[in-house]
């Protein structure tokens, strides 16, 4: 259980219009194919052109959403920057690899190699802000954002005056899509109207970046409170997952009925979703159930979009109908649980509440 960690700013770039603070699932963009790319027009003015020209899409998304979260919070001086990314700067990595292959390891330009390291986004944010403080990047698949969040919470528990910028970033360049498509990760066809009714293998890939300003001090811009986080590695079956959720709730001193909504990390892939699906019928059956990957796609840091959603639901006191998977009626969302999975190996629980 965590004491007094507040979300005081958010910035989110995704396949939907999340960069616009007034947008909250009014106009929803449906996928045409099995991936949901970010439209760069939605945030093209957020970074000066002379700066953004030298950046990859990954870095542009990360920097723009980070700056947006800072602006939202009104904080200018950070005590730490903590990022999470599952795949890192994939596009630049593969560009460098391709040129290495095509030129037989001769006369290579270092530009893409320089930008290929996994900590490039956190480093570029520090560089732009001239921030000499603590700077970490977590790169563990479906735990990348969660680990960054856990680190940010530790920093605040050490000193509640700390202002920590924490976020997740992942991109889906063509080179990545080709690989995961050939590996059978993607759905063949998408039923956009009723995404979860199609029980086939494969998911729909997503990309984007969500950053948050966390602090131990409440402010006028506070969205919600982070109450608890837990990662669960490779649970053997649904029963084990259910036990972990029960323990998480009791550690958080909450009963299941006090949860106003549970945001589920269903990806559409029938195999990866099986354990959470089981919980929807056997554990969460009386709770309001919500989905998000049908709007944002699947990625190692997709959970950061659920975190953004939960924070906004609590602040706006609104549950967009489009997110709901069942008819449970809730007056006001005060306590939201995120129950995520990534490729049926990385499970996580995040609890947010009104403060």
């Amino acid at each position: 259980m965590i004491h007094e960690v507040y979300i005081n700013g958010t910035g989110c770039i995704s396949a939907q219009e999340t960069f616009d603070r007034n947008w909250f699932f009014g106009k929803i963009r449906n996928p045409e194919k099995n991936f949901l790319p970010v439209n760069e027009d939605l945030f093209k003015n957020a970074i000066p052109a002379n700066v953004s020209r030298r950046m990859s899409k990954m870095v542009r998304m990360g920097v723009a959403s980070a700056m947006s979260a800072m602006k939202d919070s009104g904080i200018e001086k950070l005590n730490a920057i903590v990022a999470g990314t599952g795949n890192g700067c994939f596009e630049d990595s593969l560009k460098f690899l391709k040129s290495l292959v095509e030129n037989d390891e001769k006369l290579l330009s270092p530009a893409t190699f320089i930008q290929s390291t996994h900590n490039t986004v956190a480093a570029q944010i520090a560089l732009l802000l001239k921030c000499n403080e603590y700077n970490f990047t977590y790169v563990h698949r479906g735990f990348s954002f969660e680990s960054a969040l856990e680190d940010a919470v530790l920093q605040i528990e050490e000193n509640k005056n700390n202002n920590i910028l924490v976020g997740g970033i992942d991109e889906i360049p063509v080179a990545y899509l080709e690989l995961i498509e050939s590996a059978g990760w993607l759905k063949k066809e998408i039923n956009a109207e009723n995404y979860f009714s199609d029980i086939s293998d494969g998911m729909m890939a997503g990309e984007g970046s969500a950053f948050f300003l966390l602090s131990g001090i409440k402010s006028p811009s506070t969205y919600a409170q982070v109450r608890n986080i837990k990662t669960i590695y490779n649970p053997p079956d649904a029963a084990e997952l259910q036990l972990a959720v029960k323990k998480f709730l009791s550690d958080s001193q909450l009963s299941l009925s006090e949860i106003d909504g549970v945001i589920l990390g269903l990806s559409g892939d029938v195999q990866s979703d099986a354990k959470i699906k089981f919980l929807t019928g056997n554990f969460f059956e009386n709770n309001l159930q919500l989905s998000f990957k049908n709007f944002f796609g699947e990625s190692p840091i997709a959970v950061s979009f659920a975190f953004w959603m939960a924070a906004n639901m609590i602040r706006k006191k609104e549950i967009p109908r489009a997110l709901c998977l069942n008819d449970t009626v809730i007056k006001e969302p005060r306590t939201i649980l995120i129950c995520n999975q990534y490729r049926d190996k990385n499970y996580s629980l995040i609890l947010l509440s009104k403060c």
Partner: protein
Amino acid sequence: MPQKVFVTGMGIISAIGNNTSQNLKSLLETVPGISDIEILETVHKKKFKAGEIKYSNRQLAELANCNAENFTRTALLGMIAAKEAANHAKIKDFSDDKMGFISSTTVAGMCLTELKYPDFLHSKINGSFIELNDCGDSTECIADFLGIKNNITTISTACSSSANAIMHASRLIRMGKLNRAIAGGTDVLSKFTLNGFHSLQILDENWCRPFDENRKGLNLGEGAAYLVLESEEEINKNVKKVICEIKGCGNANDAYHQTASSPEGTGAFLAMQAAIQTAGIKPEEINYINAHGTGTSNNDLTEGVALKKIFGKNIPAFSSTKSYTGHTLAAAGAVEAVFSILALNNGMVIPNLNFSDPVSELGIVPEKKITRQDLKYVLSNSFGFGGNCSSLIFGKV
């Protein structure tokens, strides 16, 4: 009350040995492991030397006692080193929910991707090697190999990665979130990094010469190293033998350039300062510094500037052990943590090889031959791309 954090086990595989005792022997005999490239398939085989571990993946799998087919070289090295660390600490219950595994890598599965991708570019089929490409793969392989079930994560901050893994694990224990953790990193030689550093023109074709006026660049290396960290409470409960204490940690960002470090050595200075502050000691109490010392023109100059800022005229004995192992990238912080602890517990200052003339702007001279003296505190530096600077301080118990 913050918990004190102690090291109770360590494991390493590098170009100078498959385990801790072999690495110690090579250090005591000042035998470097940098040689012509034999295992990595590259057009630069004759051109560059490297700190290469002279085992094929199949031979590494035999050392680890597992099936070579299922693992990248990155995972195999990590499994060997982490297993040694766990055995050393005599860990019995790996599935304990207050035990963690914090690993790190930069190359990750690129060592496999670079072999498979050329065919994929033409055929666009069989891209399933993507499943092993990311940084989390080796961490999960090592965790599964040892049976670690909880609190697993991976850090990648370029060449300071495993120093940061040790720092994060220490913080988790200090704050009572975990009782015990294995922390470190693994990285292997790859065409990707060899060509990357070559494209930046920072590879020396001969043996690297850290802190020398005529240094030409670094030699790449490969390796893995892990420490077992435990809380004071856990040690008292199990009457454990303690190797040393994690006394201080500091991370700062240079915020100057994506790859180059600032002329003032701001990040390096701040990281060392933070480590010394958290250790609660005075700079003059540090007896030996295991420097980052890559042998590049830029790093050694700015690290030297930062050392002078912290220690003034009385810089403690220092050396770069990259002249033995090459630069093992993400693993370097943990490899050098093991060397720092060996120095501490064996009362030896490890010499810096291939040094002849001091850098004219600095006038500082690293240790040139092995000296035996009582050490109380050892500082280890690790700096990486993206301005990431980390310092760890190990204290004798």
